[in-house]
């Protein structure tokens, strides 16, 4: 058997997650040796059609054409993995899901009818079967390399599911909530970033999305006690993973609460 064929595909996104692969400078040439990168438009002019052994998918589905394109890629791929918050949760562009997309289009474009766009920004898994999801906005390059390597070795890729708090403890970072009263989403956010934000004296804003079984109501109750308004607390959950079910549900609950207060 020849080398496994790798394809990288982009939907609505910022290119940051696929850049993580090019940013793994030390391993990049080794990866390029171990797999045959047959489709990666950002890196190579050689573009081969399928089948692919591994497909990395960045970005969310936001246009009618992309709905068809992802089906095609799925059909061509043995193992399909989503990379990043856009592909796994709809990304920051999913903020329009609860709003009026045509009004958004009118606000940005003088002639919105030139451009076709769906009302919702949806994750890849809403359209096709996904074999593995790598979280983060952006993903962590070491996790990406580890996943590719484990696939090559025939192992199931493993990434941690615990919350950012645990990594804070492991790094020895003093908790910003306890020490400085700064609101932090760390207790409900999945690890993967090595708890960067608290080490820079700011609260986690949830860019890796919800951890396994997060207790969001309990965290909100705590946050509201520090004087944060329900609307602000809702905004905090409404960013890169706004459409991840756990964050979505709690931000709706807080928004309703804010409405009642007014």
């Amino acid at each position: 058997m020849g080398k496994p064929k790798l394809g990288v595909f982009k939907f609505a996104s910022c290119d940051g997650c696929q850049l993580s692969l090019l940013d793994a400078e030390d391993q990049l040439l080794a990866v390029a040796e171990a797999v045959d990168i047959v489709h990666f438009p950002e890196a190579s002019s050689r573009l081969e059609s399928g089948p692919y052994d591994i497909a990395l998918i960045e970005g969310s589905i936001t246009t009618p054409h992309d709905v068809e394109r992802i089906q095609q890629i799925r059909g061509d791929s043995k193992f399909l993995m989503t990379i990043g918050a856009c592909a796994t949760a709809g990304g920051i562009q999913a903020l329009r899901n609860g709003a009026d997309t045509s009004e958004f289009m009118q606000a940005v474009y003088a002639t919105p009818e030139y451009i076709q766009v769906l009302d919702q920004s949806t994750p890849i898994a809403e359209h096709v079967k996904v074999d593995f999801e790598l979280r983060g906005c952006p993903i962590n390059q070491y996790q990406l390399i580890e996943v590719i390597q484990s696939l090559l070795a025939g192992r199931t890729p493993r990434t941690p599911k615990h919350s950012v708090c645990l990594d804070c403890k492991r790094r020895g970072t003093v908790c910003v909530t306890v020490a400085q009263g700064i609101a932090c989403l760390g207790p409900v956010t999945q690890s993967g970033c090595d708890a960067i934000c608290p080490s820079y004296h700011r609260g986690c804003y949830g860019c890796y999305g919800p951890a396994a079984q997060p207790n969001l109501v309990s965290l909100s109750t705590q946050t509201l006690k520090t004087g944060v308004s329900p609307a602000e607390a809702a905004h905090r959950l409404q960013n890169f993973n706004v459409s991840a079910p756990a964050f979505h549900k709690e931000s709706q609950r807080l928004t309703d609460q804010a409405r009642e207060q007014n």
Partner: protein
Amino acid sequence: MGNRTIKVETLTRVEGEGGLYIRLNGEAVDEVRLEIYEPPRLFEALLRGRPLEDVPDITARICGICPVAYQMSSVHALEAALEVTVSPEIRRLRRLLYCGEWIESHGLHMHLLHAPDFLGFDSGLEMAKQFPDEVNRGLRLKKHGNQLVDMLGGRAIHPINVCVGGFYRLPTRKEVHKLIPDFEWGLNAAIETTRWVAGFDFPDFESPDCEYISLSHPDEYPMNAGVMKTSRGDTIDVANYEAEFEEQQVPHSTALHAIRKSTGRPYLLGPLARINLNRDKLSPSAQKLADEIKLEPLCCNPHKGIIARGLEIIHAYEEALMILRDQTLKGKSRASYEYQAGEGLSATEAPRGTLFHRYIVDKDGKIVEASIVPPTSQNQAQIETDLKQWISHVISNDERETARKCENLVRAYDPCISCSTHFLNVKIERT
């Protein structure tokens, strides 16, 4: 020869996704279209109603290749709206962060995206088999850029440490000094790299009558402040940006096309424009090398963009080293501010050119309106204009060869079309 079309379905080795469409009538060019099919992500619309503190984190996500540029233009614009002045230390650290992004972004473009065109490879990774030393050196430079953004920004892609007023925390002296040995090596390596690319075989082609525009500053190479200067000799205050430039929507692209209102013509931003207008502000090593390789004082050959990038990497290393070695890292990590209703605008120099942000905020610190004009969308009309001329140089019966040469020219501008879709038309109408 009758009518024929040349289509490049997917432009490769550019950031973001787009294609190229060329219609010829015999030898004459009927139409050239740089087709951008990036889906719109509507950032300006979704920022409305959000706390202004969210803006640097969210606008970073417009582009994973140059998040620092989005963070810098946004914090400057918001500070203008809040009438906040940052300390000289913070200003220097912001330049340091920008140096990291220039090194990373230019390093990526030069070695992995552009150089393969001159040496006949499909990718930098393939080029590495014959030019291992050069590619490895390039990857190391790129990595230094990432390390610097990582140290000061918390991570290389979408840094977390930037905020309105400054930084969440200042780096420690130890963190800063740790980078010095690598950067000393890197400065020399950057000089070698630039010498190497300057020796490439450049097509004999000049953009006809192109106007170059960049920020300019009396004391420094432009990065985070200045007025706009143009190669026609005009000076434009950033505050007048929207009066001087106009974006037009075209059917074939999700990006808008920009022109100078006074001339009705396109213009070019980016490294070549910056070098053409600010060569005397380059660091000593970069100036020396520019002279050594005999770069024209006004270089109009877009293929030489790779040299301009090399010179800017040298500059970034030299300036970064100066700041890294500085012993006076002190003061507060950020300026405090109070909310007030207002409007603020700012332009900074992203790796690909001047990036303009404007915000209106209300008295509770919420965003009322946002307007973002990225460099690539402004360059797009100039790229199409140049392509029309370039085709007559490269046209042959071999369609694939012609298409390849057209793609080469497009790549020379380092277009980043993942960000070219997200800006507000300035002629917004509200009811």
